[in-house]
């Protein structure tokens, strides 16, 4: 029939994994890894999102075209955020004029 039918145990397995990862991300939030906290939180979120995309949305069993369209959205999103963050971060680099005092001229 239309599309690949996924066996029940895979659905429940993925659901359990998602629950586990939710617990993990909440636990990790209260530990102090310094800057790593953001990386861990985002990593777990990406992992959960990939699981949902691959199994619940059947991308794992779909044609190449669907796989590309599943990925391309995130690629352009990373491009947007990366470029804007790079600009904001590098705004201070242009060497501002060396600090000189006012009114040298009399």
């Amino acid at each position, binding site marked *: 029939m239309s599309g690949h039918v996924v066996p029940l145990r895979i659905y429940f397995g993925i659901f359990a994994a998602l629950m586990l990862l939710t617990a993990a991300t909440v636990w990790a939030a209260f530990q102090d890894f310094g800057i790593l906290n953001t990386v861990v939180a985002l990593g777990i979120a990406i992992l959960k999102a990939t699981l949902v995309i691959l199994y619940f949305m059947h991308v794992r069993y779909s044609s190449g075209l669907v796989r590309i369209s599943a990925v391309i959205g995130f690629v352009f999103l990373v491009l947007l955020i990366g470029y804007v963050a790079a600009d904001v971060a590098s705004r201070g680099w242009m060497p501002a004029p060396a600090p000189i005092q006012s009114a*040298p001229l009399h």
Partner: protein
Amino acid sequence: MILFGFNLLPAQASTAALSVDLVYLYIVAVTVFFTALIYGLVMFFSIKYRRRSESERPKPIEGNHLLEIIWIAVPLVIVLTMFAAGTIVYFYIFHPPKDGIQMYGVGKQWMWKFQHPDGRREINDLHVPMGTPVKITLTSEDVIHSFYVPAFRVKTDVVPGRYVQTWFEATKPGEYHLFCAEYCGTEHSRMIGKVIVMKPEDYAKWLSGQDVSSTGPKLSMVERGAKIFQDMRCATCHAPGTAAGLGPKLEGIYGHDVALEGGQTVKVDDGYLRESILLPTKRIVKGYQPLMPTYQGQISEEDVLSVVAYVKSLTPQAAPADAVAGGTPSDAAATAGTAKD
């Protein structure tokens, strides 16, 4: 460059003008050449091979890899040379020099307010000396404006909430247009002015002339900043010269890095000083409580510029002249006039 009675290039009245024009003329040459090449060939082929009879069946030409490579490589090289020329001019010419006068400007909906370092204030007009680099720090009180002097080939958007830096060195005396180039509302086209370039001696004479615009004694920016520093009772926490009061001491910090709460460090420049005045709890110096109230809305952008100039003067600079100009804070406080302009 004069052609048919009107000129094609605006006056070249700054050091940057010539190099920008040279890059411009180089690209014009490339444009004229390729337009003539493409359009000439199109017209030539269309006329030479115009259809004589409906039964003509020209031989198909699939393509030619060599030609394709040529007209990818050659344009690529040409555009990269344009990129190189533009970037070199941009980074070297637009690199602000060490010396020169520091001026301040505030864009407000539909007028420009300039301040000379000695406190002289002007609306829409800006007198500058010839031959010395003029650095101008700009901010806006409402929307985005753009400080544009075509004769100097200089333009920078004046973004509210931030300091923006640009500089030029005028080379020809005269009056040049000053435009606002970023659409800023109803009177956008009225937000124009004049940049009057004068010989250094005329400029000095003009500076010492009667400053008609502000009442009360002519205070330099630093002196005015000191007065505001007192009036706004900044001294209660940042008392100059005393040990660590409630607020961090302000002497000797300008231009150096300062450690912040949460581990980062920040270079104390004009922008950080302005931000600490208007948004104090944004980045707090290490070891201090976030007690400072925000002055947002109680102090105008010009006064912020004066206070920033005053705080900068608290840091002894290499150039001895500044010590004289800045004067020790106590002198400035003593001469503080009562009239608040």
